[in-house]
């Protein structure tokens, strides 16, 4: 087990290098720091001095890959590639283009993100599983058919509609909770209700339908037929056999997104003005702060790979027949 985990972590290294090279190519080779500086400074005619000054201020004034002016090891370390990409491997995110400490920002901003994603995940799982099990119980009846049609309709509605509609209905018409914003401590709860609710309603359609398929697949299996043949009631079959076995693919599906909960939801956070990592990223994109975007790409990749690793491990825990090799 431990050797498997270590091997998988070693396997992650080339992937992270790949991610780094892609972002590096996108940000420094396709467009040189000169282009970025010109864009940041805004005007059509920018003096070369201004560009040089901007590059010096943000540490982009060094050679891209090889610094022949520097001494010994400095030939490699005092370059843009080393300072901006290699450093990410030790989670040294450096400073944003506007001069803020990115690592500090991330450590501050992950908590509001978690405050939304964790309740959404837990409540969501309970709600979706309940709905899906109900539909599976009433399979091949009108309740099931129209339930699925309703799911498809809800899936087809843009997530923006749920957010804007929710803000308008709950926040503006009913005045139940503030439309957007955030506060610390227990005060935060009233700001969190609406985003969590909207997120929940927004993915009811796809999740319920997906879980229903999983439950129906379990219902078609032999052990369920055996259980029925033994004379167990449909309720017992459903809860003891179908639900328990159906939970395996559902929970392993959840494990893969667990690390991504830190990143938060980009759109929701930005709409509800929640100072999490999602809105941090959106702001960075809008302000064209390349240092933050680069850091978030790297962080996102690390968390994704972590999610894959956790999924593999969770498979062996829930199903001992699977051997890690």
């Amino acid at each position, binding site marked *: 087990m431990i050797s498997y985990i270590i091997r998988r972590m070693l396997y992650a290294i080339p992937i992270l290098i790949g991610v780094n090279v892609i*972002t590096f190519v996108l940000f420094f080779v396709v467009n040189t720091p000169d282009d970025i500086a010109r864009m940041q400074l805004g005007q059509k005619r920018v003096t070369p001095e201004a560009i040089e000054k901007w590059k010096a201020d943000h540490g982009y004034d060094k050679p891209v890959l090889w610094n022949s002016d520097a001494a010994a090891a400095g030939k490699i370390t005092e370059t843009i590639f080393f300072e901006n990409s290699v450093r990410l491997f030790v989670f040294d995110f450096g400073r944003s283009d506007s001069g803020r400490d990115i690592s500090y920002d991330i450590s501050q901003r992950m908590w509001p993100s978690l405050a939304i994603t964790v309740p959404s995940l837990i409540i969501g799982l309970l709600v979706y599983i309940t709905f899906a099990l109900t539909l599976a119980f009433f399979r091949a009846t009108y309740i099931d058919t129209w339930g699925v049609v309703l799911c498809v309709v809800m*899936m087809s509605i*843009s997530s*923006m509609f749920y957010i804007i509609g929710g803000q308008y209905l709950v926040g503006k018409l009913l005045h139940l909770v503030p439309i957007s914003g955030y506060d610390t401590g227990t005060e935060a709860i009233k700001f969190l209700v609406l985003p969590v609710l909207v997120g929940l309603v927004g993915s009811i359609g796809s999740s319920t339908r997906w879980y229903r398929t999983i439950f129906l697949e379990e219902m078609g299996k032999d052990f369920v037929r055996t259980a029925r043949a033994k004379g167990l009631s449909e309720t017992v079959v459903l809860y003891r056999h179908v639900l328990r076995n159906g939970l395996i693919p559902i929970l392993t599906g959840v494990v893969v997104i667990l690390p991504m909960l830190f990143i938060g939801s980009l759109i929701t956070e930005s709409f509800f003005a929640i100072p999490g990592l999602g809105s941090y990223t959106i702001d960075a994109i809008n302000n064209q702060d390349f240092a933050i*975007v680069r850091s978030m790409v790297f962080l*996102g990749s690390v968390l994704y790979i972590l999610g894959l690793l956790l999924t593999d491990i969770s498979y062996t825990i829930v199903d001992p027949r699977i051997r890690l090799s």
Partner: protein
Amino acid sequence: MPVIFLTDGLIFLLLLMVTAFIWYARRHEHLRVPWRQVGRNGMAMSAVVVLLFYIIIGLLDSMHFHPRVETQNSTESRYSNEIISVLDVLLKHLPEQTEKTYSAPFATHAYAMETIDHEDGTRTREYPRLQHGGTHLDDPENRGQDILLKSLPGIAAGLLVWMTISFMIVMVLARNAGVTISGQLRYIVHRQTALPWHTILLTLGAVLVLFVWAFYLSHYYHIFGTDKVGQDVFYQAIKSIRTGLMIGTLTTLVMLPFALMLGVMAGYFRGWVDDIIQYIYTTLNSIPGVLLIAAAILMLEVYMSNHSGDFSSNAHRADLRLFFLCVILGIMSWTGLCRLLRGETMKLREIDYVQAAQAFGVSHVTIMIRHLLPNVMHIVMITIVLDFSALVLAEAVLAYINIGVDPSMSSWGNMINSARLEMAREPVVWWSLSAAFVFMLGLVLAANLFADAVRDAFDPRIREY
């Protein structure tokens, strides 16, 4: 003088490919059977009618040209600089009917008060009459009555168009089946046809009546109101259809060759080829999607702002950005299909006919093209139709982060993005948002229903319970 944008060319290439595929599928029984099953599904066929309606509008909007300008000496033909599409010609009245600012659907008066100087020198603050919406009314009080009266010819025209088309369809069906027209009609009414023509014709009727009615009324009113700069929202929503379709289909066109080639190769050769391909798609997958798009679009913006001289017009620039967005979305979405194809190919390569072909010394390329590719096509089909609706929805989200299509291009995402802040106004400006959501819902819902039917027909694992 025709103008062919990059995306126009590609969409017609795609149309050609789809036609060729239909022609091919008609001659192959194993492909015809699942499609026939899709055809028997009533819900799927109404979805197809709705989709066709969107596609026809999208295609009409993809034929661009420079309109001819009328000049004094008619021997010399001159062309205007602006680029319009065939759809613009059909809906010519709509872009001309611009107001000053917002106005509600079917409104006769503007949304905002203005100070008006009267002839007798007095000044009042009141809601001015619109310049185009409801100007035929002498007394705006009669508006409700007038809308009803105007609806009648609209609906009648819609019914007429529907009946003409239906009659032609029934006539062709009757001729093919060798029965009389009234006999064929009876079969359809009693739902005794192989294809659910009953449902198809009813859906067609609903779509046609609704559209012709809206089209007729749009000559007199702004049926979905006007936006901030006074543009007709109905026109924008219709123009956005092309953008939505482009994002949904071109992305697939871009990613398909890569996904097919790499997926089949990884599954067939295994070993180091598999390792490399797996490495590529895990790496691409691990970059958060929105961030990769954002990074790429930011880079495109930097490039465009530094090379602004390279583009002959803003429309060309917007078009390039649309294409680029499709490419980026394609790069992100091929990985899922690639993984599926790899798994399926791994299973197939152990099957006897592939083994036999290998024993006969058939080359790798031939085995992959002749024996493997046709047998993974069902996965491709399912993925394409499932991805389509997700991509159309994604466009709206991307527009919100300003990394979607060019802001000057009409798209549902841009409509939502520019209208979302107006929800804070009093009274609420809801029509722009609603129109975008309704048009989007129509397309995505139809695509989802169709996708479900296709999946049910092609996926061997799905059984009826």
